[in-house]
């Protein structure tokens, strides 16, 4: 598997990355996880990922800010927003700013897996 799709997961609660990483790796992705936005931003300055999964509410640069950074650095990537404060407002705003999908916490593992699959298809088409 030479070119695995790559995924970057950013959530300040470590359990989210801890649970998603093995699950997505099993589906054949290469996964890196971050629990603070500063180190994730530092990383995308070095490397673009195909898919980003990010929490919305975080200390420091929040999900919306991170989304902007991704759009600047990696315009071809797909961003999936996840948040516990699922309101139509925040979902709508993230779409306006270019998010690809939006999932409310808590979510089922198969939900995120199919969202990632959809995002991967889109990235590949580009």
């Amino acid at each position, binding site marked *: 598997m030479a070119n695995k799709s790559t995924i970057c997961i950013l959530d300040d609660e470590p*359990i989210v990355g801890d649970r998603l990483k093995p699950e997505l*790796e*099993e589906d054949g992705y290469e996964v890196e996880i971050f629990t603070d936005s500063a180190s994730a931003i530092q990383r995308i300055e070095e490397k673009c990922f195909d898919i980003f999964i990010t929490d919305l509410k975080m200390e420091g640069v929040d999900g919306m800010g991170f989304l902007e950074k991704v759009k600047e650095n990696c315009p071809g990537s797909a961003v999936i927003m996840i948040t516990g404060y699922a309101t139509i407002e925040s979902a709508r705003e993230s779409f306006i700013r270019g998010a690809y999908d939006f999932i409310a916490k808590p979510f*089922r593992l198969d939900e995120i897996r199919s969202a990632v699959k959809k995002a991967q298809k889109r990235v590949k088409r580009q």
Partner: protein
Amino acid sequence: MLNLVDRLASLCKKIIPWGGERSSISFNDLFVRFHQILEENNTAMELIAEMEDKLGGQYVFDKKFLEDMVSEIERVILRSAYNFNFITNNKELEIYSVIESLARKLQQELAGKLVIPSGQNVLALGDIQEVMEEAVGNKAYNLFKIDTLPQASVPSSFVVTIGGFRKYLAFNNLYDKIDNLMQEYRKNGLSVESVSNNIRLMILNGDIPSDLRHEILKAAEKICPKNPESSFYSVRSSGVGEDGMMSYAGLHDSFLNVPFREVLSSYKKVLAGMYNSASLEYRIQRQVPFTDMGMAVLYQQMVPSQVAGVAYTVDPNSPDEQVCLLGANWGLGKVVVEGGASDMFRMSRNPPYEILESRIGEKKWMVVSFENEESAKVDEEKRNMPCLDAKQAALIVETALMIERYFKRPLDIEWSIDTEGCVQILQARPLGIARGGQPRSQELKEILKHRKALMRDKGIIAYRGVGSGPVCLVDDKKSLENFPSGAVLVARFGIPLLARAIPRASAVITDIGSPTGHMATVAREFRIPTIVDTGSATEVLQNGQEVTVDAERNVVYEGRVNELLHHQLLERPLFETLYEFQILRRLLRRIAPLTLIDPDGPNFTARGCQTFHDVIRFIHEKSIQALLQIAEAPSTLLAHGGKRLKAKVPLNLILIDIGGGLDENIGKGGWVVPDQITSLPMKALWSGMGSDDAWSTDPIVADFKGLMSGVTRTQTATVAGQVLTGLNVAVLGANYMNLTLRVGYHFTVVDARMGLELEKNSIFFRFVGGATDISRRSRRAALLMSILEKIGFKVEGSGDLVIARVTNSNIDQIEDHLYLIGRLIGFVRQLDIFMTDDTTVDLYFEKFMEANNINATGDHKMKRSNSDGK
């Protein structure tokens, strides 16, 4: 700053003058409040179900979710408590402080603090409860869990809790002294050894407080009642984190063969052992806070044994093989544990657990006596003879693998076979095999691709994991009782009755069921991989067929997929051990179980509420009681809009509509007919109860009307020591009913909710009393219990009391159940008179099944002719 109780009390005062008359409040207002209570309680139950569902491993959730859920449940319950006090005229203010204290404990759990119940310093193994994991330490808690698993016995044991440890430290002023030493260690660079020696000396020189001494000695006598003074005990450390998530295996001291006279001194020795230098080093490295250090101590009766040894559920040297290892010797296990000459067996991990290879050592010596660990010569002819036969070895492996299924990791188990031939589990701890934390490899995925899938993506996963075994289709009580350990349980309905076999199953699949139902809760409790609501498992899967259930990817494979099972046991990261899952489990233990079951039980008080579910149940029951008490007499009820039901069965029943329960166009008259009932659950119940053949089956041979009027007239009867004023009342809403019946000297309550939302549906049925002697009444209760269990209720009871519940059922199932309850009330009304011996229980069971077309799986075809409701 006013506390919560005062604030709410002052709120209440604004609405109802303190202690004043409530003449100004209409019945209608009370019903509106009652309706709100029903809604709030339902919301709370839905939230609880939502939390429980997350325990199955299918969801990704975070700490914030847990915090949100806890505060939301608390908020809803407080509102319900407020309405409850409106109805009871503020007579139940205590419920606020109960809610507050439960909420405080939940907040502590969320903050990761140890919540140790006070006043429980010594506990028998059987008295340990789910919430006490931290109080009794991991070793004792694991043994308590093992003891609840089928066919695993644990010798009589008791534990001195961490509460006892704290008491010991406080009594001897050791908190400050230890703290000072630790400060010195950090500041002045004392060696770990000297800190350890100092602390241990201080602990060994302390005194056990007299009440604790007394409790320990009493408990030691109790577990060896025959002759405590000449009994022997094993005394082991049971720390928090020990043998659990963090492994302190072998770091703390354990003592075997302790005579009664040393029971107290060994307590101090084990406590001191916690501060040995290796252990201190370990804690310093891992930054385990010293202030929260705690040590529980486990005492176990030393059981004389024929053979004893250790079991490794996986061979540490070749974990890829499907092999367990057994080491065994005659007599007590000491020789094996210490590595003396003994027998080694390599056993298959697959049923029927055959011996693959055995190495029979020359067993010259065995330990026979606890007293001086005296070694005795083994008889010549037994020296080179295997000390386990194939059957015994298979039994040990079967038990060990069942325990492994629960803990989901390879284990190192100490066992013995006692003089009666039973396997006893002395200790179980994780076997130190590194877990890779690996996802499924490409090779494994290839293997799975080429395996035949019998079912794929059918139904909902209720608990994640992988299990394998022969399919066992369960359709009646007998097949449940004979359920083989390690089989895959396949059933049509996810009914509570299955709970008996679930702990023995390697996986569970149902055709119909919900991940929030009672059965799924049991499966999660025992960590059994479970898929519900597949629609067709009982048709697709054949009895006895070997399958592997992948309740991670929702696939059922034909045959045993060893590669997948192996990956699951050794490489898969366990979600169960993640911090948030542990917190969720702990929170749920204080939220979800129902311990207040019998409304007439002595603990049915505000103070008796141990969980939020108890609070909900308490508020519900007491609100109904308060409503009926306000009514007092039928005339009051009728004056406030109650209606008499005009029906063929002269029940003298008064109906109270709290909204949508009766036809809007009934007019002002005092009577209604069954056709005018619009309450869905009451209609369903009445379709069974109102049919005249429901009341005229075999037992009632006398004139029907004469008998009925004799037993249904308003009367005062003594049931279970309680005076009941005869009042038959039904409180009705569009989707709700609560029926209280006092007929034939027995007392029946049916409380039900029925609508399109499955999660909100429930039935509570309670039956007690009768006019005959207790043995006949008990037979009738036994009959009721077996019928109700058969048709899918969760049943409890003792003597002549029966309590049956159903939750999470769809509208058709609830309708069916209520119809049958209606039939049942009529059927058993005076049956106790005829239940002269135990055989009548089976006889009338069959009669009821036959009369109501109930088949072997508990299904039945509705038979509703002759009902006045139609």
